[in-house]
């Protein structure tokens, strides 16, 4: 009996070490053999919002390209800082990704959190979202110039709604005011919808939100868009000129991409970047962006790293100036 027990122990030990060897071998191969399990994408905003919908379609397409399940997790709060911080602190192995909004380059300057786009390696950018300077259809101004002239003559009288204090639309409107040398009273709402309701109910003079969010009311003849702030014309209101074309040097726009925490092995970042480039070509993604009124504007991971760095520098300087933050 004793011997048998000894034998059994020995066999178990051999078995264990064998298993350990196998484990070690697969571990060594882990990096190029990515992914081997489910990938999680953290969206720092609520389910159903614009970023959530885009992330869900991206995740579904990524699943097809990589052949492993991709799940979406929403972690909301503090203008996105909660979700971003959770990814920043996750193990940098490529299995935890984050949806990256423009806010990732703004939170630090706003003083809300320490996390910034510098803590991540991008794998792609998917879209950009311009801001639409929108007023009621029966407002007396038909061009941006007329509107800004009125604002100049009535400093502080023009109430411009935005989707939250320190949001990209707030910064966009503040940049426009600075470029035009006028004074707006910025009215922050809890999201774009209440701001739009505020304009519909004539509680405010104008809103700066994304074109898609005002499209229904523009189509119905309740609103008119005076200008878009962004790189290019918006596909939602293609006839409206950009502020730059109208002679004001402002481009503050929203964008959305995906990233992994810094420290992720280069091979893994590469695999995800390549996969994302394929996803970006998918018709499903393109048609979703079109339906939702976002501009399809893909960038590769490396291009996006450079772009985000640029944005981070820009906002770190601009936000304290515009919003009087230290």
């Amino acid at each position, binding site marked *: 009996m004793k011997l048998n027990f000894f034998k059994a122990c020995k066999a178990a030990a051999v078995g264990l070490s064998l298993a350990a060897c196998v484990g070690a071998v697969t571990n060594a191969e882990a990096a190029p053999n990515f992914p081997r399990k489910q990938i999680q994408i953290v969206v720092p905003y*609520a*389910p*159903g*919002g614009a970023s*959530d*919908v885009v992330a*869900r*379609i991206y995740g*579904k397409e990524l699943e097809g390209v990589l052949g492993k399940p991709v799940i979406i*997790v*929403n*972690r*909301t*709060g*503090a*203008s996105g*800082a*909660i979700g971003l*911080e959770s990814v920043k602190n996750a193990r940098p192995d490529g299995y935890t990704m984050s949806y990256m909004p423009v806010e990732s380059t703004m939170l630090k300057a*706003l*003083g*809300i*959190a320490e*996390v910034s786009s510098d803590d991540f390696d991008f794998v792609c950018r998917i879209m950009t979202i311009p801001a639409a300077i929108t007023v009621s259809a029966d407002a007396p101004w038909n061009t941006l110039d007329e509107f800004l002239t009125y604002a100049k003559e009535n400093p*502080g009288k023009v*109430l411009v709604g935005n989707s*939250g*204090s*320190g949001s990209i639309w707030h910064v966009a409107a503040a940049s426009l005011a600075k470029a035009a040398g006028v004074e707006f*009273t*910025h*009215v*922050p*709402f*809890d999201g774009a*919808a*209440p701001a*739009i*309701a*505020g304009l*519909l*109910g*004539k*509680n*405010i003079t104008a809103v700066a939100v994304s074109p898609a969010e005002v*499209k*229904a*009311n523009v*189509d*119905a003849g*309740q609103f008119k868009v005076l200008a878009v702030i962004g790189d290019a014309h918006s596909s939602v209101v293609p006839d409206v000129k950009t502020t730059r074309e109208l002679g004001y040097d402002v481009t503050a726009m929203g964008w959305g991409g995906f990233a992994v925490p810094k420290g992720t092995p280069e091979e893994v970042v590469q695999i995800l970047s390549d996969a994302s480039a394929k996803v970006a070509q998918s018709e499903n993604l393109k048609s*979703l962006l079109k*339906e*939702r009124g976002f501009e399809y504007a893909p960038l590769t991971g490396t291009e996006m790293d450079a772009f985000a760095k640029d944005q981070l520098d820009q906002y770190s300087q601009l936000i304290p100036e515009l*919003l009087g933050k230290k």
Partner: protein
Amino acid sequence: MDMSLWWDSFLAILTPEVLMFNAAGVLIGIVIGALPGLSATMAIAILTPITFWFDPSCGFAMLIGVWNSAIFAGGITAILINTPGTPASIASTFDGYQMYRQGRGGLALGINVIYSAIGGIISTLFLIFLAFPIASFTVSFGPTEYFMLALFGLMMMISVSENNVVKGMAVGFAGLTLSTVGIDPILAVKRYTMDSTSLAAGISFLPVMIGMFGLGEVLNQMYEYKQSTAGSALEMLKKASAKLGRILPTWKEFKQFFRPTVLAGAESTIIGAIPAAGADIASIICWGQAKKLSKNPDEYGKGSAEGFAVSCTSNNGVLGGALTTMLTLGIPGDAVTAILIGSLMMYGMQPGPKMFTEDTGFVMQIMQLMILSNIAIVVFGLLSAKMSAKILNARPQTVWVGVTALCVVGSYALNNSFSDVLLMAAAGVVGFIFKRGGFAPGPFILGLLLGGMLESNLRRALVMSQGSLDIFFERPVTLVLMILIALTLCFPLIKKAVLKRRKAA
């Protein structure tokens, strides 16, 4: 609207597939709504991508079914374990759980089914006949009106203070104070966050509510159980759960509830149609108003079937209102309608004023699906009422473990966050201490819930007026609300004076 169009769209939804998807949606909604922490919003966000594979009418049949029934099912847990399954059923805990403890759990479950459906149907009727007038009134609501609404909601602190108004006010203001933790709504600076990102997100209301009502109640029962070794508390509970009593209200009760519930249905439709006011505040305001107008206001909060019927009607009544804003203005009245707008866009429709003219048939289908879902709720709800209560017939220890597990899972599932679980646990302990000290948790929850709305709209109004308080007196709707609030506060005093004079005479 054209009758033949109605008939055509009615035939379009009367297909086996649409009915099946609707029934499936209602069943999913009952399960998700009854689990604390899993909200209607979450269910719909997860199901929406799946519905893109279906025909629009099937997809919407499912989503509208889930939405209506999740709100209704939130009341089931409010009755059975004192924890509202969704924030919309917060007012259902005031009376529902008391009814259950008094051995009238069956009636409470029955009222929840019937009056939720009635609320949904009343509000859909408003949507059908008065959508445009309601929407043009509610869209004029600005920050000053929202501030007054929040203040109106806070008045209900007095009603839910149970026996001690001073203690109620004390915890109410503690709740208000806690709601200021987080990022300042106007200046975007951090307040009381102690450099923690979790706190920068604020003290979220849902984990606190789950902890205070659910875990707090469990702790309290455990404490009382130990004290009464004879097991009188246990006996009482067992008796209560074994004897559910009848489910359907009597004809007399039905007549008694008629006026307050129809009023609540109308009120909640209008509150639901206000773009930034939701089911939670609607049910609180309606419950408080019904109490003021009731013949037996003292019963409210102590197991009043009438009060419970009002809160059930009003939380489902909001849905028709939210759809009104969504369909007529194209702006979401709450998180669920925001998602529904997204999925309508995916189907190539643009919600907003033009949808009524361009996709008239589908608008009618949505309205009919609302009615259909509410009928399905009555069928499934009544069939499952006895069954859902049976689950709690287990030994109290089992129930405690089960409820605690639900509280933990629910608070984690909200935002996938452990700090929410810790917050829930802390709120549970505080809730227990409140209970032992005779402090009602209701005012605390109200303060925390409405604090943000109160503060941000007050300050938004002051930003708009550049610091002048005149803005509160210049707007007619604000003034009317202000007068209503003043009347609510003075009503008991006036009533007393009148009674005295009558007695003297």
